[in-house]
């Protein structure tokens, strides 16, 4: 029964997307508002179908209905509550269903927000595009990625979640947040396509979708940070970012998205860079599809990849289609897109945004090239090579330093033009903060040229951001924290914290393995570790063998967990503090033949700054998207004046 109902939900969603698309196209042709409104109603049906299908899948999981293939493979009677809910997206088919649900939600919110303007062709074409994307994803669900397949002979127990997923609660949060980000970019993309198709390529569609882009970017940021936290919690050697192909795949749209939200400000003010911005946005959306392809196709070997499946080629085909469509539309509308206008001077806010875009574009290029380079080499001469962390770190470090410097200088730059005198004045306090940070780092004991330069630049950038926030709050009180510029400064502070955490935790990590017997006391990196003993615990969802170790008096319990489906994971235990994290993980347990337990100890400074920075970034995004006093509604279907040069 679950199979039938679930399939019903999916088919409903596909049908509604298709019909809605057709009705809207008819409505656009006939210029009939009634037909357009009718077409827009189908978004509710899409949402209903997808949510219904999702609810059915959850019901099947909680009822342990092993006649459903997905539940038989990934569900289990022993999985605890929240993780059982999260099993819905723990494997390929379910994750596509989650994508569909989030797409349905965005679709309906767009319809509601724009309901007074449904007769506007811009909005209608945007909905048509979104329906098109729905047709693809729900089509995948109706065909190759069907979570509702029947099992001829239902087993007595399901396969259970992959142990690496089942051991951590972040499983329940990272994918939905990440997908909310990926799917979120569908909305500005749809409006971009609508703008190209209708020819209204001025600033209207851009301003309309500014908040949508910000929200999507915010979710993507949150998703990536949660992913890093999850990796840190389960890998056991203090790693949170491995430049793994799947991680890189999620970073690529984030990089182009960040470039986009900066350079749109130039377009809003000066009407310039239209081709570049629309390309960036379409590239961001295309990269989300490419990322999904890389994760699910197994073309590039990765620790994180889902199992290889047949939807890989379809995702690649969709990616190719999106790029072809975008390239075609931009090529066609090329003439209308180009705008006259100049940027007065590189030393200006516009200039700094252009530099920002240059750096982020190079960053994205490096990440993409490094990720696919093994494939290129193999295609050329058959050799297999690996491109890993050493490459990415060496290439992205100078870019990161330059970005920190830019973050310091850009907020104090005015629009149009600035003289060095102005810079010298405004950058005084930020520069003193930078020097202060440098001196403080040296005093605290940090050594090494590159980390110290990074800390100095971080202080410099933090000074510029704080200066802006201070001035804004001095002028407007608490309202000074809200709005694009000020929210943006809070986001910058978050980025700075993350940069510092990255530099510190990578440069000053100390790691060692110790073979211990009960009662051993060792000293490592100014910490005292005392091995108390081993403990066993058997639970319904897993059986745990944990080592009880006291670190400076605090108890840590790294463990090895065994799951009913035969899987096994090693779960590290971490003691966090503002300054330093100590992480313990078990390499080898004592057993009947040997009474030594091998424990790996990793001591890293400033790891918590990473999560705090991520939180600040999300907070800043929320503040940025907060409606300010001058809430514009520039929805007139008229392009910005593109004829005369800016006065």
């Amino acid at each position: 029964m679950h199979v039938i109902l679930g399939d019903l939900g999916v088919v409903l969603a596909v049908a509604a997307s298709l019909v809605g698309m057709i009705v809207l196209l008819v409505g656009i042709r006939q210029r009939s508002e009634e037909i357009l409104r009718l077409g827009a109603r189908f978004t509710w049906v899409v949402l209903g179908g997808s949510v219904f299908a999702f609810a059915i899948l959850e019901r099947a999981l909680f009822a342990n209905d092993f006649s459903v293939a997905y539940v038989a493979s990934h569900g289990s009677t022993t999985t605890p509550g929240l993780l059982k809910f999260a099993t819905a997206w723990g494997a390929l088919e379910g994750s596509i269903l989650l994508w569909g649900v989030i797409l349905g939600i965005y679709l309906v919110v767009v319809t509601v927000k724009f309901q007074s303007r449904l007769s506007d062709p811009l909005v209608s074409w945007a909905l048509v595009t979104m329906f098109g994307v729905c047709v693809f994803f729900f089509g995948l669900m109706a065909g190759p990625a069907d979570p509702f397949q029947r099992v001829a002979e239902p087993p007595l127990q399901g396969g259970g979640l992959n142990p690496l997923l089942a051991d951590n609660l972040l499983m329940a949060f990272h994918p939905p947040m990440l997908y909310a980000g990926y799917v979120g970019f569908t909305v500005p993309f749809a409006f971009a396509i609508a703008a190209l198709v209708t020819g209204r390529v001025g600033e209207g569609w851009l301003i309309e979708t500014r908040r949508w882009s910000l929200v999507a970017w915010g979710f993507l940021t949150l998703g990536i940070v949660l992913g890093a936290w999850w990796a840190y919690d389960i890998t056991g050697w203090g790693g949170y970012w491995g430049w793994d192909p799947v991680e890189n795949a999620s970073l690529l749209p984030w990089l182009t998205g960040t470039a986009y939200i900066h350079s749109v400000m130039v377009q809003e003010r000066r009407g310039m860079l239209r081709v570049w911005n629309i390309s960036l946005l379409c590239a961001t959306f295309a990269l989300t599809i490419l990322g999904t392809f890389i994760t699910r196709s197994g073309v590039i070997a990765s620790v994180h990849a889902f199992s290889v499946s047949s939807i890989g080629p379809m995702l690649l085909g969709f990616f190719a289609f999106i790029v072809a469509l975008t390239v075609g539309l931009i090529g066609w509308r090329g003439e209308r897109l180009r705008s006259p206008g100049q940027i007065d001077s590189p030393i200006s806010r516009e200039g700094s945004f252009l530099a920002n875009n240059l750096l982020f574009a190079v960053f994205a290029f490096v990440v993409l090239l490094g990720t696919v380079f093994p494939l290129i080499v193999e295609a050329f001469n058959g050799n297999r090579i690996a491109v890993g962390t050493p490459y990415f770190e060496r290439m992205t470090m100078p870019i990161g330093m330059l970005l920190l410097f830019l973050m310091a200088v850009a907020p104090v730059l005015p629009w149009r033009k600035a003289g060095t005198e102005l810079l010298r004045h405004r950058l005084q306090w930020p520069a003193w903060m930078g020097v202060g940070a440098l001196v403080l780092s040296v005093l605290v004991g940090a050594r090494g040229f590159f980390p110290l330069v990074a800390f100095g630049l971080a202080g410099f950038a933090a000074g510029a951001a704080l200066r802006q926030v201070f001035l804004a709050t001095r002028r407007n009180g608490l309202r000074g924290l809200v709005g694009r510029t000020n929210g943006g400064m809070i986001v910058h502070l978050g980025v700075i914290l993350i940069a510092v955490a990255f530099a510190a935790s990578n440069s000053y990590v100390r790691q060692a393995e110790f073979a211990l017997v009960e009662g051993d006391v060792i000293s490592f990196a100014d910490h005292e570790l005392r091995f108390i003993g081993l403990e066993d615990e058997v639970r319904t969802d897993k059986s745990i063998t944990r080592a009880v170790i006291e670190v400076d008096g605090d108890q840590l319990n790294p463990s090895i967990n065994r799951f009913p489906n035969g899987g096994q994971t090693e779960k590290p235990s971490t003691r966090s503090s503002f300054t330093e994290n100590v992480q313990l993980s078990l390499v080898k347990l004592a057993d009947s033949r040997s009474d030594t337990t091998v424990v790996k100890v990793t001591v890293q400074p400033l790891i918590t700054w990473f999560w705090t920075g991520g939180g600040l970034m999300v907070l800043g995004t929320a503040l940025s998207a907060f409606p300010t006093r001058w809430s514009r509604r520039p929805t007139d279907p008229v392009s910005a004046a593109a004829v005369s040069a800016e006065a």
Partner: protein
Amino acid sequence: MAKASVTDPANPTSATWRDQWRWASWLLMAIVAVAALIVGVVDNDDARTQGERVAAISATILCPQCTGQTVAQSNVAIARTIRADIATRVSEGESDDQIRQAYIENYGEWIITNPRASGLTSLVWIVPVVAAGLAATALAFAFARWRKALRLVTADTDTTQAASDADRALVSDARDRRKRA
């Protein structure tokens, strides 16, 4: 808010004093920064312990049995064996490069995560640098073009008029309105 150093006719020495103080401040900043950096670099105990060397080399050798993990990250038998072997080689005095070369001979080029800087593989290092250089040059050209266009546009316009009293009144009026709003 931004106090430009306009010469105040009433007090001609104050501006220059402020300027000098600003220059002195920047100079002092530079001295302190350089001093701190020198301390940070010179005082650095750069010699890595053997354990750190082993960890650093292990981080660049892939675990042959795993997907995408280095021997530093994995705990399977072969990963532990390779880590122990690296430790032995380090204590025997082999250099980082010798150890990596030995593993390339034993397993193949794919086992090292740092792509070589020769042959086809070197492209992965060169292409981004070249691309960045080209992009920066293109941007510089764009700025030059814009500046030339601006000069043509503003060449005839007289921009040297001083603000008249009427203009000043307009500005202060607008400021007051804004403050009240």
